[in-house]
């Protein structure tokens, strides 16, 4: 089972690379085929813990399909995060419902001191991410646009990704691959979804960040600290540092 899950994670990464190499249409068709494969395996398999992981993995190719088909050039870039993030959040909620897991398990409050410490990791990581990638500012230096940017990056970027990779995936995969290895699996999956950054340095960096945050979530049992850290990382890298 561990090997099959590793195979699917590598397949997601391979299709991302195929999309980069041979074009988006080929990439999207590859992701669609993977969704079909994962769903058919889910339906055929009777071992509930393993099949749950397959269903969660469906969300990754789905994320990529949505990210290429919903945004349009006329909409400001900052809105793209909501355009992709909202339907993805709906899909995540449907997955929780189908698997009969409570979302509140991952987002429960508690261990505030540790959560603040985890959130603080976002500050140095943000600076590091900016120095690796040096992106253009996501929005102009207009207060209400900056506020919208911060809100969208937090809800549709940080929260959505943390629920998916650290909350849902780690939760369902831990009984199958083991509580230590699940952090490695989730960070590889997380890094694979960043292959579209077209920078190997940035992919490696996000893989390392995934390992750190995965470990934090495993130790504290909640994702709030990493949601805040992820939000600080994204806002710092895409809005604060580029505008300074």
């Amino acid at each position: 089972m561990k090997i099959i899950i590793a195979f699917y994670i590598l397949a997601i990464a391979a299709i991302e690379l195929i999309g980069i190499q041979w074009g988006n249409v080929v990439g999207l068709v590859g992701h669609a085929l993977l969704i079909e494969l994962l769903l058919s395996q889910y339906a055929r398999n009777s071992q509930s813990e393993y099949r749950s992981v397959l269903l969660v993995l469906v969300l990754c190719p789905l994320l990529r399909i949505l990210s290429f088909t919903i945004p349009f050039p006329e909409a400001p870039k900052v809105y793209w995060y909501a355009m992709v993030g909202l339907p993805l959040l709906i899909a995540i909620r449907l997955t929780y419902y189908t698997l009969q897991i409570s979302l509140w398990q991952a987002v429960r409050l508690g261990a505030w001191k540790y959560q603040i410490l985890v959130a603080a990791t976002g500050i140095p990581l943000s600076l590091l991410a900016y120095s690796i990638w040096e992106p253009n500012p996501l929005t102009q230096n207009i207060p209400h646009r900056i506020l919208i940017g911060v809100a969208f990056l937090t809800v549709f970027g940080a929260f959505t990704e943390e629920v998916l990779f650290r909350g849902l995936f780690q939760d369902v995969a831990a009984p199958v691959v083991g509580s230590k290895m699940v952090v490695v699996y989730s960070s590889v999956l997380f890094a694979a979804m960043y292959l579209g950054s077209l920078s190997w340095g940035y992919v490696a960096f996000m893989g390392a960040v995934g390992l750190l945050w995965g470990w934090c979530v495993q130790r504290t049992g909640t994702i709030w600290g990493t949601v805040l850290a992820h939000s600080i990382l994204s806002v710092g890298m895409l809005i604060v540092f580029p505008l300074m």
Partner: protein
Amino acid sequence: MTSTVTERTITTITSHSYDALSATLGVVLIGILLILVLQRETLRAMGGSRSRDWMKALNIPIVPMLGAFAVIILLRVIELVS
């Protein structure tokens, strides 16, 4: 940049017109959605507990893709009207 909107997403969307995007990636999405909906309806006709399970799982990609489909259609209609 996040995994939801990557550099490749930005490059693709900004370097093509919406016409070109909806005629390539949009058509692929509609094709995928059509296959998934057909599959779901076939499973509904077949019945049985395994089919019900599969149908529930199919809702996960179908529902957000319907949202994407609605955006594509809406933008095409706006384009036609204007």
